[in-house]
């Protein structure tokens, strides 16, 4: 067995010994880390779902071309052909007045009876112009609006996705705010973890002293604590990711999955890249904390307690 292999084996076995020796301290550190990462996981989950939801809306770009009533069948057929030939248009679908009323009644259950109180169906017929999804779809939608506006038989052409732009602005601000908050939280978490891990180091000060006196380098003595910190970071992140998914499923069990809340908060699971981010951040926190927990004392000779 090479010295390097023996050293690695020692780090791993001693890291396990460290956990076994101070279970309370290690559980406390793990719980703190997992809880903080769980909260971060929930934030990332909401962020991912809102982003996904906006993306879905963006992908489903369409223009509503409302028609004047009563309409001329020839005019409408000509308009339909013109719209279908515009660049980027995927489909042109006629929505009759009756279909528009049905849609309203399906979407606004409690208010479904309101139109019935009127003398006639208030909804106009329209063409729903669906565009090919992807970048530039919004620009092509505006071209459809320009082309349709003012044509014979057209009351109004509407591409109303400005609110999505607005929502994205808010989402960007929320991301920046989250990042600004994440840094001090990261620092605080490192401090708490380091303090907790320092207790574990203190509990083993006799062993540390002996190892240093028999010629172990401070790096050698630090090794098992850093390995324990790394394992703790990995475990903490995995626990947080699992809890986030459990939380998501619980929410879906209690809230109608087709509701806006469910879609914007828990419609899709935490994406892999966000899970990876959580694991990376967790490893960075625990490794930094472990490093500070076993840093040298000011005399440069001994570790804590030695």
């Amino acid at each position, binding site marked *: 067995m090479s*010295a390097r292999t023996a050293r690695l084996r020692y780090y791993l076995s001693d890291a396990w010994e460290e956990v076994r020796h101070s279970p309370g301290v290690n559980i406390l550190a793990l719980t703190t880390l997992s809880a903080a990462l769980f909260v971060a996981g929930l934030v990332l989950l909401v962020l991912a779902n809102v982003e996904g939801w906006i993306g879905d809306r963006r992908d489903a770009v369409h223009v509503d071309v409302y028609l004047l009533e009563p309409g001329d069948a020839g005019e409408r057929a000509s308009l339909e052909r013109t719209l279908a030939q515009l660049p980027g248009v995927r489909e042109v679908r006629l929505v009759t007045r009756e279909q528009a009323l049905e849609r309203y009644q399906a979407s606004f259950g409690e208010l479904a009876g309101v139109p019935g109180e009127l003398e006639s169906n208030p909804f106009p017929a329209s063409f729903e112009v669906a565009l090919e999804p992807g970048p530039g779809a919004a620009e092509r939608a505006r071209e459809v609006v320009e082309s349709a506006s003012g044509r014979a038989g057209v009351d109004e052409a509407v591409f109303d996705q400005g609110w999505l732009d607005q929502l994205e602005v808010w989402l960007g601000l929320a991301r920046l705010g989250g990042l600004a908050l994440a840094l001090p939280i990261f620092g605080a978490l490192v401090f708490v973890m380091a303090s907790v891990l320092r207790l574990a180091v203190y509990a083993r000060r006799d062993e540390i002293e*002996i190892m240093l006196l028999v010629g172990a380098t401070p790096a*050698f003595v630090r090794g098992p604590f850093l390995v324990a910190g790394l394992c703790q970071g990995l475990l903490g992140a995995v626990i947080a990711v699992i809890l986030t998914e459990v939380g998501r499923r619980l929410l879906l069990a209690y809230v109608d999955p087709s509701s806006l809340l469910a879609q914007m908060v828990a419609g899709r699971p935490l994406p892999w890249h966000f899970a990876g981010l959580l694991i990376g951040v967790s490893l960075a926190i625990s490794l930094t904390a472990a490093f500070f927990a076993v840093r040298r004392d000011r005399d440069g*000779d001994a570790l804590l307690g030695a």
Partner: protein
Amino acid sequence: MIRAFNLVKRYPGGTTALAEANLEVERGEFVFVTGPSGAGKTTLLRLMLRQELPSSGQIIVNGRNVGALPASKVPELRSTIGVVFQDFKLIRRKTALENVAYVLNVAGLSRSEQKQRAYEALKGVGLNHRLNALPPTLSGGEQQRVAIARAVVTDPELLLADEPTGNLDGELAVEIMRLFREINARGTTVVVATHDKELIHRMKLRTVLLDGGKVVNAGEKPAGQPPAGTAGEPPAGDPAP
């Protein structure tokens, strides 16, 4: 093996533990360092081990100027020195065998090599029948023998012992000294700090007397002491006259 020139150690607050101490210990020697409490015995040993830095003067251990040694070289120095403490400093939750084997991790030995060498070291101090005993279940003398096994398992060139018999009664103290003589007979230089005058008298070995931080008597190597690495005196024999 050890040379101290005008060695001074002052602590913050003005206490002077060592004042212009000069000392020379040859390779393979067995030396007692004695003196009243506060004479500087422990400080001298701590300086040899680079647990402390001298305020002035020099201390050379095995060719290394300990005071000027960069921090990165301290582990190398310490890997050539074995240490025994009055309070044994054993890890309570590890067995006797594990306590001795544990320090061999530094040498990068495999687990089986560690156990083999730890077994040999414990056998050398007569404790091969208590390998799996935890320190609290061992007597004081047995605990100190485990500590000695731990100190010598790395084959150090120098063995430092600070009041190793301070917690042991007379007969056990003699037993421990006999072990030190055996180790010394194998070529290891041994320096024992103790205030036990009776023990020193019985051993009849070179004794350095410290008082007020000064070496007031550097002692003389007794005519009968064998040169380094030779077991001129039966190691298992009773050192008492």
